């Protein structure tokens, strides 16, 4: 049982904007994002940290935000799906998921994209088994992963092309504050 009313202040940079929020110590990062900051693009799909729908970046690394207490991100930078790109300026992964039909119901998609962004930041040229291994902690029930894997491979190629050529990708896989 909680100690009702006892709260802790958390100062966190979310999608580039500094925020200070008073939270119950038991509050999870995913609840902070969804309930306190209204960032509902990060989803909750399970209660055992199995599904990955809540994946966000903390200081540039993908984490399952249901497995992190809100108080743990005090002083950190968090990037969510809302911060990685927008409809007018899609991240290459967002664009590739759209082009390659890498989503159906869309519920796992934000977590899947954030997980894949973490992979591509570490490995810009992954082969298919590497992609499949990297997204193993994210469950999709709609696509059989076929088009998700295609999307991630396509985004990797687009980002490599952008890196090599004159054009810049519309957004980078790195969080804005790190």
């Amino acid at each position, binding site marked *: *049982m*909680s100690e*009702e009313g006892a709260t802790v202040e958390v100062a966190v940079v979310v999608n580039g904007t500094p925020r200070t929020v008073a939270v*119950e110590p*038991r509050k999870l990062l995913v609840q902070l994002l*969804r309930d306190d900051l209204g*960032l*509902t*693009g*990060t*989803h*909750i*799909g*399970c*209660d*055992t940290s*199995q*599904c990955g*729908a809540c994946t966000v970046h903390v200081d540039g690394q993908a984490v399952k935000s249901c497995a992190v207490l809100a108080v743990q991100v005090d002083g950190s930078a968090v990037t*969510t*799906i*809302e911060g990685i*790109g*927008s*409809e007018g300026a*899609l991240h290459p992964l*967002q664009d590739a*998921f*759209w*082009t390659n*039909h890498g*989503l*159906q*119901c*869309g*519920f*796992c*998609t*934000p977590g899947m*994209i954030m997980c894949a962004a973490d992979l591509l930041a570490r490995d810009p040229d992954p082969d*298919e*088994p590497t*992609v*499949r*291994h990297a*997204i*193993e902690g*994210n*469950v*999709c*029930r*709609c*696509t*059989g*992963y*076929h*088009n*998700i*894997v*295609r999307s991630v491979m396509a985004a990797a190629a687009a980002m490599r092309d952008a890196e090599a050529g004159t054009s810049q990708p519309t957004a980078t896989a790195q969080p804005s504050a790190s």
Partner: protein
Amino acid sequence: MTLAANPLDTLGQPLKRKEDPRFITGTGRYLDDITLPGMTHLVVLRSPYAHARIRSINTSVAKTMPGVVAVYTGADTAEVNPLPCAWAAGGVENHLDTPRILTPDVARWTGDAVAAVVAETRAQAVDAAAAIDVDYEPLPVVVNAEEALKPGAPQLHENAPSNIEAQWSCGDAAGTAQAIGSAEVVVRQRIVNQRLIPNPMETRGSIGSFDAGTGEYTVWMTSQAPHVMRLLITAFVLGIPEHKMRCISPDVGGGFGSKIFLYHDMPLVAWISKQLGRPVKFVETRSENYQATTHGRDHITDIEVAGSRDGVITGLRVKTIANMGAYLSTIAPGIPTTLYGRLLSGAYRFPNIFCEVTNVYTNTAMVDAYRGAGRPEATYVVERAIDLFADEIGMDPAEVRRRNFIPPDAFPYDPKVLTGPTGLTLKYDSGNYAPALDRALEMAGYADQATAKAEAASRGKLLGFGLSSYIEICGVAPSKWIGLPGEGWGAGLWESANIRVHLTGKVVVTTGSQNHGQGHETTMAQIVGARLGIPVEDVLVEHSDTSGTPFGYGTYGSRSGAVGGIAAYNAAEKVRDKAKRLAAHMLEANPEDMEYDDGTAFVRGSPDRAKTIAEIALAASVGYDLPAGMEPFLDETAYYDPPNCTYPFGTHVAMVEVDRETGHVDLVRYIGVDDVGKKINPLVVDGQLHGGIAQGVGQALWEGAVYDDSGQLLSGTMMDYALPRASRLPSFELDETVTPSPVNPLGIKGAGEAGTIGSAAAVVNAVVDALSDFGIRHIDMPLTDQTVWRAMRVAEAGGAGGDVRGAAEGRA
């Protein structure tokens, strides 16, 4: 003209989906993303016992907990009717027992709702629920449906002796008995189709809001069928006028059948919102979804397949025990009866079929439609039977399939088991099964499998090829066939669409169908855009709100395209007809001489005498000059009741490697050649097939809902229920044949369930093929490492050929 050169081309084109931008940017709006002013939170206390009498419930402590607004028990909701069952098994006696919104006296499974706690926050409601003290008297439990039929088994419901809900049959008992009695070869096998958990990534939920000023309710719900839910909640459960409730499905994160049904929380949130005068939200946890939302499958089946040594099958007899769970979910009795027995001819010209089904209550979660709903179970029976028969006579299973296929000149084909109690016969619409088989075998390198198997053996692997030549019944269903007098479905199954062409030429389409990932907002726009010659970007598809869309039955049974899509097509035909009549008036031409193509109504033979749809819409909207008797505005509604179902088909080939030492099964290739008729959007169709295949593979290899003997769900979290993961699946290799359906003008059949229907049997057939040297002829799903390893070791010890029970794989 500003229109594209030929907008009709969008039919069949792989357009990127219109709905995707909101999902890829995190701006979709799912149920739990909705917050209303003054909203409270509901948490449900569920029975920890699978069967127990509730002696007393003490809520006094919970009511004083911080933030608690109200606590309710079954005593408080006693005046509320039980949930209805909308589909009793057709033509037979049914013993219907359905859940209450809170159970008042006896809990019958570990998800049964005992109390409801409403608090200012979800966390406070969880805390308070833990403080409710329930005094239970545990009762004997039965979880296995065959055990539940035995004398002395615990009885769940007074009106269902021996726990039997219904006994149903189809086909020709005498003819099949005669065929089996006189056959050269008869193969018998018991097969278990294990219980599954559907697992949409978004769990279920509902929000109730009552407006005291208007006396109207609004219920948001994660439903595949919001119009039907409104009818059931108002008229059947709460006894309030249907028009006083608005039901809305916001973005819905998958369903796979489990979100078709009426669940207790839907009327409960409406009821509570009126009691409190405040909105209330309920969202399941994942573990709660596993406990309390419907499961799928769970059949125990004895099959007998008879034929001659030249590979011709002459009879199939099937006896199935279907586990219904503790109560009946909304359409549960129809799944193992109509949607199962009537598909048992598969792709084959079996002259004699007889099927008996017994629906049984047990102390487990309710079982209802899960992707494919009865048809995967039937296909699994048929496709395993073919392989068992082929093994018995020593013939290539591909050749046995070929020898028994319904020939292409036999369509429309009457499989006899599709004839219901009214005598109304449905026939397979069209098909040509051998080319899909041939193509799939070619892609798999089937002819040279000996070489591939030898290569695998050199690496210590046992390579197996498994076939499944499935058919599906899609586009459900003609109302007069499936409805009450026939198959027992307590309503119709037509679908609706409305088209409004606004003054500026922009179009709003509403459909009674419901999008939860299938791409309706794109594919419906493609149909309407193509027929009206309007760019897809200018067509908005609205759905899933009972306010503003005509009544519709929703999305399931692979019916959105073949039924809902045709309603949209027919509404577009009405718009075209009116547009032609108005254009004739504008051009002072004879209406009979008008044609409509590419967004333009024109005089036949004089294409320069033409009006664009935008010009016609403007004229119709302002209404200054209309022909005598014509109403203003282009606004047309169509209700489409299909004359027949549609019958997609295909052949899938699974290639697996089994590790001789560990029993590990690796799905190395998966090939699907599907014929779903014409495709509205191949990108969307292929996505449906991919997802369906993965779910069937999941059943074959990993998934299983497992209860212990006391009714505790051992696979109670996502940690314990093994879902398909990316690392365990290959990319799928798909091809197609195209046999248009003659049932509808677009020639489409449906694809939502095809992958699941075909894939489980293909994978199991492949594993059994890989193990053929051991003399193993059948293993029950899921084919986990342990199960396969044990089967090999038992066979080596001389116990080959016996049944080996599957055990669901826990995720380490």
